[in-house]
């Protein structure tokens, strides 16, 4: 759906405004659709789940629900997150279930014109194109738009079945 929106429209300079939440993984700035995000939490104690896939950091209690926490860096093969006080857990809703992802630092809510988003190159910042929705330009900033649904669902389904 988004792909259609992202197609550069030559006649129109004014496209749809997308609202994104930006965050850092290492030195790169990434962004995801704000509608996917339920809340952003400070780092907290995570209960380890033995024998779970490596990128699964564990589970936390979110107001009575047990929510799995994913280390996004590990998942994207960007090394392991170094947890510090800037580390945050972004709680997202994927396929109507909550999943938390650990990111290094949440930057801000970004509004971007969808004409400023170009389709993803095959690989960027070490992240494969299938996980990307595109690359957005905001002044001199380069935003890598992640496809959280793809990252957090498709592969896991095949893995666990």
């Amino acid at each position: 759906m988004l792909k259609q929106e992202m197609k550069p429209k030559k006649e129109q300079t004014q496209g749809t405004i997308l609202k994104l939440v930006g965050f850092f993984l290492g030195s790169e700035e990434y962004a995801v659709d704000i509608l996917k995000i339920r809340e952003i939490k400070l780092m907290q104690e995570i209960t380890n789940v033995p024998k779970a896939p490596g990128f699964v950091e564990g589970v936390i209690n979110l107001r009575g629900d047990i929510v799995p926490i994913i280390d996004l860096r590990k998942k994207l093969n960007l090394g392991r997150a170094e947890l510090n006080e800037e580390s945050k857990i972004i709680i997202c809703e994927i396929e109507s279930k909550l999943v938390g992802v650990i990111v290094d630092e949440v930057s801000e809510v970004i509004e971007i014109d969808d004409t400023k988003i170009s389709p993803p190159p095959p690989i960027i910042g070490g992240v494969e194109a299938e996980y990307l929705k595109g690359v957005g330009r905001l002044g001199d900033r380069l935003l890598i738009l992640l496809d959280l649904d793809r990252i957090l669902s498709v592969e896991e389904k095949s893995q666990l079945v």
Partner: protein
Amino acid sequence: MDIDLSEYIGEYCAELFEQLEELQSDLLELEQNPDNEEIINEIFRIAHTIKGSAATMGFADIAKVAHAFEDLLGEVRDKRISIDNEVFKTFLDAYDIIKSLADHVQAGTEPEGIDVSVVEKALRSFIEDQKQAPPAAPGREPEAVDVVDRLTGFTKEPPSDGRPEETLTAEIEKPPPRSGRGTPPSEKTWKIRMSFDPDVDMKSVRAFLVINHLRDIGDLLEINPSADDIEQDNFEDKLELTIRTATARPEIENILSFGEATEVEMTEETGLQTASPVPDPDPVPDPALTSATDMDAGASSSMEAKKQLQPADEEEFLKFLLGGPQEEEKKEPAGTAPPATAEVSTPDIRLVDELNEDHKNTVIESINQDLNVFEIVVLFRNAEPQSMLRALTVMNYLGEMCRIVVSLPRKKDLEEGVFDGRLQLIVSTEKEIAQLRELLLAEEIAKTSFTPITLDGLHIVPLEGDIPPSTRVEETASAILPQSRTSTKPQEDRKMAIPTVRVTVDRLDDLMNLVGELVIKKTRLNQVFSEFETSGDVEQLRLGIQELNQGLGRITSDLQAGIMKVRMVQIGQVFYRFSRLVRDLSKNLGKQVEFLIEGAETELDKTVIDEIGDPLMHLIRNCLDHGIEPPEVRRKLGKSEKGILLLRAQHAGNHIIVETADDGSGIDAERIKQTAIAKGLVDPLVAARLTPQEIHNFIFMPGFSTSGEVTNVSGRGVGMDVVKDSIEKLQGEIQIKSEKNVGTTIQIKLPLTLAIIQGLLVRVANETFTIPLSTVKETVTLDTASIHTIQNQKVVTIRDEVIPLINLQEFFGLPLRTEDNKFFIVLAGVDDNKVGLVVNYLYGRHEIVIKSLDRRFTSVRGFAGGTVLGDGTVSLILDIPVLVEESKRAYLASM
């Protein structure tokens, strides 16, 4: 008046499914005792209720089948048709159709591919056959009346009961859509009083339905309480109506029966002049006398249509009624025909002919999108400033429900006060005329007219004169089927019914009291704290907290018990579901089975109830297929030809025991042993030492089947392992007791509730795990136990029993903590299978609330779920059956 029926769907479904369950068990009972009149009456009552409420909710398909069902049953009851297998099968088929339609209603899906006409025809065919002998027409009509009478408990009173007219002086309804000045000779005035059962669901909807249908056949002179009040649910249980109509009494009674009232009283008013209709400032010729050209003619013609129907077929008439809103669509245009004749004051302009290109395009677009497009003419009582305001209100109302394409006068002009009492609009909408019309009735409007606009060159569809009324009605009736699937409003945005639990008010009150106490304790806590802040007395604080802690402990455990009670559901609803399965299967297999149910009232947590159905079904199929022998075999064995299948539930402490028992062939332990050996599941030497119980347990191995043949029921070797799995998922245990040629009893032990259980908290390395206490047999310290190693597999011997050990730290690959030098063994297991779990520390028992883990990321073998500890962190719950299996596998491998 627009009552959104979709909000009642949940309630309707709950009711419907209850009725269906009852219907099914009654039907099965009827099969046993085809002559039992009580059962027949009971079934009749249920079918009637299903029909009525389905019609109310606009589910025409269900209503149709239920109606045919009811009719056939009526013939049975009156002993004109006797129940043979063919009839009975048709009843069951009809039940199945209604059931699957009901499933669709609940799921909020469209019933694709369900053709009700087949079964309806089948039901009707019996009646037809029976009617072949005597001519159909006479006798039919009285019969219908008869049925209605008995159903609704009409008390036919003498025409005048002497009650003076002024008893019905209540407010007069908004002017009916049409009214006449005199009462033509054929019209009669009826006074109707209906009493509803105060406890029945959807009273106001029922009353509303009756009013709506009555409006179609005559002039409602009085409605008490007013239709507005009913709409707003200001409705107790009494409804009083006065209607003037030419329709015959049976028809009226039939309509009234939709209300499902407990008591209906219908008296003819003889003093005609007393009930004068609401004065109409815009008088019209008498509907019954005018020909079908003016605004009112449609109504009268539809009335005539009904009159024509009277002698013909009650069937058609009912369909006509059942059509509800979608049917109105067809009829209304007639009722409010083009304002072209002298009857309406200023009919001259048709907006539709004056449309500019833009508007025309909008209209075409809307029609293409399957929206209804109407030209509406609203005539107000006068052209005073207030009516200008009303006109604006009307426009606003309409604007909420439809898109106003164009209006005359324009809204802007209206706001500036340009208004001559006539408002003309073209709107496009998803709504039906009836809904819009009801909306407009809410204002002081003299007349409204609706004209559907079709694509056909944007011409007004021909309405009057072209089609004789009777044909149109037939069309309407036949159009119900397809229309009900596509165009009725309640089905369009049909909502999914949310699963519900019925709770008695007592139980809720108990909970409310507890919550009240909780609030008091909270206040007390504030008090204790502020006292401490002023006095600084630690001892006083300690005492205060101690007292509060005790109080809170009691309240929370009561609250927990209370909530659990609310979640409790009788297991009967699962049990009775099987009676049909047993009946069909045993017929299919050529076996005779008596199906007995005990302890149906035993209550179990809703989650358990929802999960227990499938495993039980497997067990019952097994019993029927493998357990109970064919009659001839049973005779040879000296058993009665009829086998017994017993389904029983009973309490046992904190558990519920659900049993299936049969007096069939039993399980051949020897054969199982041989199969197990042949499949290499067990060493022949080991097998010789196994107890019968252990041998029976082989049945639960995946793919294990001794059945030589695969029937279409069971025998594929899938089933028992699935049963065991699902029972264990419910924290339950399953046991087989069987004796050859005597029978088999399968016992399922289930916890009363799943959500909250007792757990033993243990520490392994740095992790805190929870073990369900129901699985824990005992705990020992490692140094007192004697540990042996059998080929790399550690075992512990306790009281001469060798139990395999799992070191959880190794098993889960956790980092070893060197400071841990003390170990405990938790002996846990299900049935007789035990495993020793090596842990570092025992924290003790806690009450825990089970939460499920996300299947996508954290579905790890060995964990059954998670729970939140007092400090807010998560502890994983160990899946003991899985761990037992793991240890066994390792143990057997090492042997």
